[in-house]
């Protein structure tokens, strides 16, 4: 904080107080006076109805538990088949990455990469990133090296969150099942179960996670 104070040009007390008490809408730049909110309530911009802020609901231990659970589920969800098909006596199974490879091997590598990134790589990185952040906040925030890593991870967070599309993959599994069930027998395996649980864990993890709160940890 001392370094930051030196960088900042001298401003009078009034603007310093103003800084703490207002918030700018990120979508329309309106100046909004900040006020305390009860839990579970979200402040919207009065002009354009964009989310401004909500009460930080970001328990570090809760997130740690969710991250570890998600990480444990991530591996079976990706290595066991999510769908199994029995057709004329032969059995076909596929994992998520297997689906991406099947498309890529036909020459549609753009589609293959899109599937792989959205359903395998981004969710994995997201879980690892949040886990690292939580561990740093919990144990090593004062060390400059870890502080830098923490900042770098926070910067990438919104991109990772946008790229990970587990919920859409979940619906795609159901759509495929409905499409194919007229022709063959489809079975869910342990992979489907793990994937479903992974999806639920990530949903709760992202609900708990609050990026503004994680940034504000650095100010303390």
């Amino acid at each position: 904080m001392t370094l930051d104070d030196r960088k900042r040009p001298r401003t009078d007390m009034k603007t310093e107080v103003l800084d703490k008490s207002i918030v700018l809408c990120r979508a329309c730049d309106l100046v909004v006076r900040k006020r305390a909110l009860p839990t579970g309530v979200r402040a919207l911009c009065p002009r354009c109805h964009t989310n401004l802020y909500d009460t930080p609901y970001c328990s570090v231990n809760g997130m740690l538990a969710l991250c570890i659970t998600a990480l444990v589920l991530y591996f079976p969800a990706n290595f066991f088949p999510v769908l199994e098909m029995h057709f004329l006596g032969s059995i076909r199974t596929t994992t998520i990455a297997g689906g991406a490879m099947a498309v890529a091997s036909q020459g549609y590598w753009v589609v293959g990469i899109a599937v792989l990134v959205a359903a395998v790589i981004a969710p994995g990185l997201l879980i690892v990133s949040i886990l690292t952040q939580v561990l740093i906040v919990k144990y090593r925030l004062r060390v400059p090296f870890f502080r830098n890593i923490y900042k770098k991870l926070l910067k990438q967070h919104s991109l990772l969150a946008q790229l990970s599309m587990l919920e859409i993959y979940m619906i795609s599994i159901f759509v495929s099942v409905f499409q194919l069930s007229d022709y063959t027998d489809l079975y869910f395996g342990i992979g489907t179960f793990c994937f479903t649980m992974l999806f639920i864990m990530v949903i709760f993890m992202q609900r708990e996670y609050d990026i503004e709160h994680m940034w504000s940890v650095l100010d303390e």
Partner: protein
Amino acid sequence: MSKLSRPPQGETLGLTNCPTCKYLCHLEQGNCPRCGQAVQSRDRTSVQKSWALLITAAILLFPANLYPITIMTSQGQVRQDTIFSGINHLVHLDLLPIAIILFTASILVPMLKIFGLALYLTAISYRLPISKKTLMAGFHIIEWIGRWSMLDLFVISITAALINMGQIWDAKPAPAATAFALVILLTQLAAKVLDTRLLWDRLESKDDTN
């Protein structure tokens, strides 16, 4: 604050949000004190970038819809499906709920997204008789729903991986799949690069009542 005729904006106070960490920065600082990102009040080039991505996406929408997206072989008979004919086929198979989901995700959403973003970008540059609130609400919907177009690609990847029995029963992706993937990518990027604060500036100087 709403009683004022011109609501105060961050720019007039010399303040702005850091684009990365949303820290309230003074514009004269140049960089965000918390995360080091360069700060600027408005990204005026974002309209151009957004238009460029959007126009590319609009062009790719044609191959994505006109070329076949899957090739199905069933007992020696080859059947090529575009996005629309595939959905049509589902309706004939009495899978109406699935057809509605796929229609929304693969036809309605990309088209609405391109049309909506074009409208939004036009509203930034020209005065349109649409309230800013409606445009902003539309933008939020576009941002949120856009990713659901990936649904079709996921379904294609699952079916292509499961159904591979040569002449008996086989499913493969076809050229439109790549075009469709690029449409999703480019429209998402177009919405992401756009600085929405520009809309509220431009219309305000001409029309305060909105």
